[in-house]
């Protein structure tokens, strides 16, 4: 931002990940803390609100601010300190998980919690308080933050840790960027002895087996995740495949020096050695309808019947979504949405049976289902609980919108009745009433009170915040 900056000529269209939302706002790209402070002053002077945006990987409107300022933090992308002896990294908020693991893996470390894509930024990861396939064991990313600094919209700078400004620490992380801007984040990495994981895969014949294996299998592994064939009916409802992985112990990998190298981890750029991956989504498009995805899911399930153990690189195991660049474009012009629900282990099976059956009855099967095992955490706007999550992807079309909206509202009621929760980086249709019911009025009031302290002029607002928290 320089002296010739004009709001009109910074107007830009932003989309969610999934390309199902488009709104325009004023784009500001700060490179340091002073420029963030200047942006807040400009916002105040112009009567505009500010939303923080990283990689824009949220499935909903978390980083959108229609008609307001979008503060793009991707240029603040420096790893400030890295200590290979202790595994502690200090980084700016725009640093991506990709940058981070590239830095730390060759020294024998791995980020303790990663998302399904490595293109997310640390600021975004903390704002949403992401979890990975090890949530049952390692919790959310916030549990591995030793300290962070933040700039408040008032211009004040604060430092928070689980001990210092603890109330703000537990609210900033999970706080959706509504309290202030992370300016540096100090994170403890996890020590690894190899660039490989030992991955076990086995089929599960129905939802009951799926949830049983997630729960009973989890303690023996470091990571566990289920694929759920959401197109399967009747007896096979909830069938799928479990992938569970363990870190290798010291000495298990004689070639650890080689496998820890970034080059060894890198995902291939072509499929079968010939098809460039960045055009693959075009060939996937014709299959992204009810019949095509039924065929794919069925074939995948049949293929999964062969159990197996194999070694796989960290990147290949974790960043499945990055295998096919732009895969989300396969969902067509109107994009996709994801519906993720978190349910206590006692009620999950019954509730998801009801939801999957309902989606089939309405002719709106999800094209992809993913299950995970979770445990609760101490963050204010937490989505986690002792139970499971199921993420369902749905294609959006002009003709299914009204029906899908109705279906998801019914899902919300089922989830709430079963004591479930939601994740703000995923669901795009959560209503204020639903948020109030799963978070509780006390939590929302506490959050707003803290916001009143850090952001007294309410400069920080996103489309998500207005949609869910402004009643």
């Amino acid at each position: 931002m320089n002296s010739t900056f004009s709001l009109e000529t910074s107007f830009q269209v932003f989309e969610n990940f999934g390309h199902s939302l488009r709104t325009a706002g004023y784009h500001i790209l700060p490179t340091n803390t002073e420029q963030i402070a200047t942006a807040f002053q400009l916002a105040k002077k112009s009567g505009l609100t500010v939303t923080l945006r990283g990689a824009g990987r949220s499935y909903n409107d978390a980083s959108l601010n229609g008609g307001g300022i979008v503060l793009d933090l991707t240029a603040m992308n420096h790893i400030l300190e890295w200590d290979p002896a202790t595994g502690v990294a200090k980084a700016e908020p725009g640093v991506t998980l990709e940058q981070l693991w590239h830095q730390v893996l060759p020294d024998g470390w791995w980020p303790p919690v990663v998302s399904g894509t490595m293109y997310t930024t640390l600021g975004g990861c903390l704002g949403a308080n992401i979890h990975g396939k090890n949530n049952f064991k390692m919790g959310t990313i916030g549990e591995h933050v030793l300290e962070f600094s933040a700039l408040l919209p008032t211009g004040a700078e604060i430092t928070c840790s689980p001990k210092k400004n603890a109330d703000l620490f537990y609210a900033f992380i999970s706080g959706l960027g509504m309290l202030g801007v992370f300016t540096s984040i100090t994170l403890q990495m996890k020590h690894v002895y190899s660039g490989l994981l030992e991955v076990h895969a086995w089929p599960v014949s129905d939802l009951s087996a799926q949830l049983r294996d997630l729960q009973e299998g989890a303690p023996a592994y470091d990571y566990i995740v289920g694929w759920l064939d959401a197109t399967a009916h009747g007896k096979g409802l909830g069938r799928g495949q479990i992938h569970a992985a363990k870190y290798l112990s010291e000495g298990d990998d004689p070639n650890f020096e080689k496998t820890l190298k970034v080059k060894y981890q890198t995902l291939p750029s072509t499929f079968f050695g010939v098809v460039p991956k960045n055009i693959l989504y075009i060939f996937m498009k014709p299959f992204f309808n009810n019949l095509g995805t039924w065929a794919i899911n069925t074939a995948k399930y049949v293929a999964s019947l062969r159990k197996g153990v194999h070694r796989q690189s960290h990147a290949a195991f974790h960043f499945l979504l990055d295998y096919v660049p732009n895969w989300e474009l396969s969902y067509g012009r109107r994009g996709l949405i994801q519906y993720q629900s978190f349910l206590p282990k006692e009620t999950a099976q019954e509730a998801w049976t009801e939801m999957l059956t309902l989606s089939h009855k309405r002719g709106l099967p999800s094209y992809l289902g993913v299950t995970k095992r979770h445990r609760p955490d101490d963050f204010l706007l937490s989505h986690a609980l002792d139970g499971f999550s199921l993420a369902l992807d749905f294609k959006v079309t002009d003709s299914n919108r009204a029906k899908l909206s109705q279906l998801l509202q019914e899902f919300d009621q089922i989830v709430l009745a079963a004591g479930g929760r939601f994740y703000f980086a995923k669901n795009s249709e959560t209503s204020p009433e639903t948020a109030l019911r799963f978070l509780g009025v006390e939590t929302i009031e506490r959050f707003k009170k803290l916001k009143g302290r850090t952001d007294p002029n309410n400069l920080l607002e996103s489309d998500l915040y207005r949609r869910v928290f402004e009643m």
Partner: protein
Amino acid sequence: MPDTNIPAATPLQPRRRGIIVGASSGIGAALARRLSKEGYSLALVARRSDLLNRVCVEINSEYHEVRVIPIVHDVTEYESVPELLRKIVAELGGLDLVVYNAGVNFPPGIDQYDFTKDRAMLEVNLMGAMAWLNPVAAMFQSAENGQIVGISSVAGDRGRIGNPGYNTSKAALSTYLEALRNRLTRHGVNVLTVKPGFVETEMLKAAQRVLFAIPPERAADDIWKAIRRRKQQIYTPWIWRWIMLVIRNIPSIIFRRMSF
């Protein structure tokens, strides 16, 4: 800024956002009704607050939600436009479409010359359009997105004996819109010039004679169709395209002898 909340847009309930300048009656009000039926969230800008509020209440109560918000503003207050525009865009949550429909017609009477009237017409019909559409064009060009609609008139196609000021204002508006189009098309922004013939509005009272008059709702339908198809210019009703083709080609030697 009125204390009203436009419902949030979600992937399953998308909303396009627009501004209609000059929306308290006539074509503007009819277009507001048409676009809100298509799911647009709109800011309706007009000088006359009573009429404007009536239109807003009518539309919002029909859909049981806030689809339009009233903005009282006089288009000749040029300096206040950029700030007002920013406030409106924030309130709407973005911007996809701007319609400039504000227009006045003060015929001076045959053989009369009236600078006050001429200036008033130029100020509303042309200068107001430039005050609004310049910042809009800058924003749309930057976003590489959006559509601008200017309601000009068949009256801008020739200078005639009855109302030189009005002809001039509409001719200039058409030229201005053409220039915007030539600037913005390369940036993915569409500019539509609408040239209505006679439409049954208050302005029709100023007309000396009336031919093929249509209700404003029909003009609004034509304009909506053109917006959807991202057309560059339309006449409404369509017959004026052919009438004006003839009129535009009448040689001056004949045209200056006509009492038309």
